[in-house]
């Protein structure tokens, strides 16, 4: 693609040394970007075109014939109970993870930020789950939440309540996975908030105190919250993007049993287990549309990050 839009004036090389230097630089530039550009075509552009093409066919991997079906795959998705359930599950998951994952992280960041000596310790403690391999940690959670041998239920029983079937009661599956999602994303968001807090000039707080902001609530609403606004926006969007990509916890904890599929897990099943390539391509485009809307929203907000 770099060769196609060669501007005319560069091809009509004149004898002047200036344009020869320019041309040498242009050639060097093209050579430098060539590997990346080829990979971009092979990994992003071609697959995108193929994906779009698949989505309007009934292609199944390995099948010999292929038929154009128009938008049938998309209409089928709307009537597909499993897909609609996966979509609803994912939305439910996101609706739980976003507020808790964002506001708990903000709370923790505010507490951690004001600790002087112990700050590093709390940062590590809360960030540790972000670094851990989620598949392994999901296995650990499965054990922790086990109805008979897990310590969580043991504690619940100790307090005199009935044990909770976190991972077998269909109603609780998505909330349980959302809780693990919050556990994983909390430290990450905390770090983003801490960065935002560090950027708030100290004298704004001092000005607020002299202006009569006597209690922490006033100072929070006069200074912290409005100035953290862009950070909060950013954290909300990244959290929702990662919420829409939830996969590992499902793959480990339920494998989609009891109607606990999520978008990505459903996609995985259709595309790679059942080989309904055409249909899966249509589902992929729907998934991509959701992520793109969130990403574009985020990009727009990144540009306006310094909006005052």
């Amino acid at each position, binding site marked *: 693609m*770099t060769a196609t*839009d*060669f501007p005319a004036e560069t091809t009509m090389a004149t004898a002047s040394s200036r344009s020869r230097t*320019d041309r040498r630089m242009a050639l*060097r*530039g*093209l050579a*430098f*970007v060539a*590997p*990346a*550009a080829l*990979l*971009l075509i092979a*990994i*992003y552009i071609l*697959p*995108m075109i*193929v*994906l779009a093409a*698949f989505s309007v066919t009934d292609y199944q*991997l390995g099948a010999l014939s292929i038929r154009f079906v128009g938008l049938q795959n998309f209409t089928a998705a709307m009537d597909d109970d499993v897909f609609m359930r996966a979509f609803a599950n994912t939305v439910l998951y996101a609706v739980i993870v976003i507020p808790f994952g964002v506001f708990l992280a903000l709370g923790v960041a505010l*507490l*951690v930020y004001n*600790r002087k000596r112990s700050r*590093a310790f709390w*940062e*590590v403690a*809360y960030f*540790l*789950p972000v*670094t*851990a391999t*989620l*598949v*392994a*940690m999901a*296995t*650990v*959670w499965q*054990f*922790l939440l086990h109805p*008979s*041998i*897990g310590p969580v239920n*043991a504690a619940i029983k100790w307090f005199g309540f009935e044990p909770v079937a976190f991972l077998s009661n269909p109603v609780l599956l998505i909330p349980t996975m959302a809780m693990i999602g919050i556990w994983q994303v909390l430290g*990450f968001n905390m*770090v983003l908030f801490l960065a935002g807090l560090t950027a708030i000039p100290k004298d704004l707080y001092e000005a607020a105190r002299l202006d009569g902001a006597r209690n922490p609530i006033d100072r929070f609403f006069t200074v912290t919250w409005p100035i953290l606004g862009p950070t909060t926006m950013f954290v909300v969007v*990244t959290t929702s*993007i990662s919420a829409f990509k939830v*996969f*590992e916890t499902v*793959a480990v904890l339920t494998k989609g049993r009891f109607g606990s599929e999520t978008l990505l897990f459903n996609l995985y099943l259709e595309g*790679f287990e059942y080989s309904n*390539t055409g249909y899966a*391509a249509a589902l*992929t485009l729907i998934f*991509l549309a959701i*992520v*793109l809307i969130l990403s574009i929203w985020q990009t727009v907000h990144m540009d306006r990050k310094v909006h005052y």
Partner: protein
Amino acid sequence: MAYVRRYLPHLVLAIGAFVMLLPFYWMFLTSIRSPGEIFDVSLWPIPKDFSAGENFSRAASQVPMARFMLNGVIVCLGILIVQVLTAVPAAYALAKLRFPGRRLLMTLVIAALCVPIQALALPLFVGLAMTELLNTYFAMMAPFFLSVFAIFLFHQSFRSYPNEIIEAARMDGFSEMEICWRLVLRGSLPSLAAFSVFSLVAHWNDLYWPMIVVSDTNLAPPPLGMLYFADVESGANYGALMAGATIITAPMLVCFLLVRRHFIAGITMTGVK
């Protein structure tokens, strides 16, 4: 009262940290307990019967745990090396050279930033299946050879490198490659470190793509291996299962504790991406 006010934040943080760290503690504790203590839900740190050896050797014998780790290392390093080799010159050219198609390439890079790999998995899988490349290291690494994020990140950081130095270096007879790798990249080592962490962590922990292209146990990276192992054990031997989980999470945890700053910077990029 003042006492309570002073220590209340610590108390709240401690309760939260207990929840955050409980899984790690429980994982480690179970991995050194004997299977017989499985019904012991106490958090007492010293097991009655110390069976770390037994659990870890079972984890290593039931499935090829060492093989999983090796696969993880090969795949992660392979990906990182190719990513850096392709992204650094491209970012340098985008930041410092003028050539036709520069704007278009930059636009495509930024557009590609918004596309998650899961959206491309299907056509890439079909392509690999047709060329009979499934179940190879190449299949596990190929989609990640190009990191548009690396291009974007290095572009941002290279842009601030002074043009005068580059021009002076050209006059001194440096080749463009030398300028790119030895001068400009040298000025962006923190970005390189953070990106390396970002890339290693992302691919060490990735499950989705390996699950699609690998069915051969011998090629499984750690997360997929963990999934196989969990299936094999199917809840029977938690001690060994937790030993496996410990082995798989340990490398990243240790790295994190060693290079905390770079680590946080690197992982935070996953959000910025």
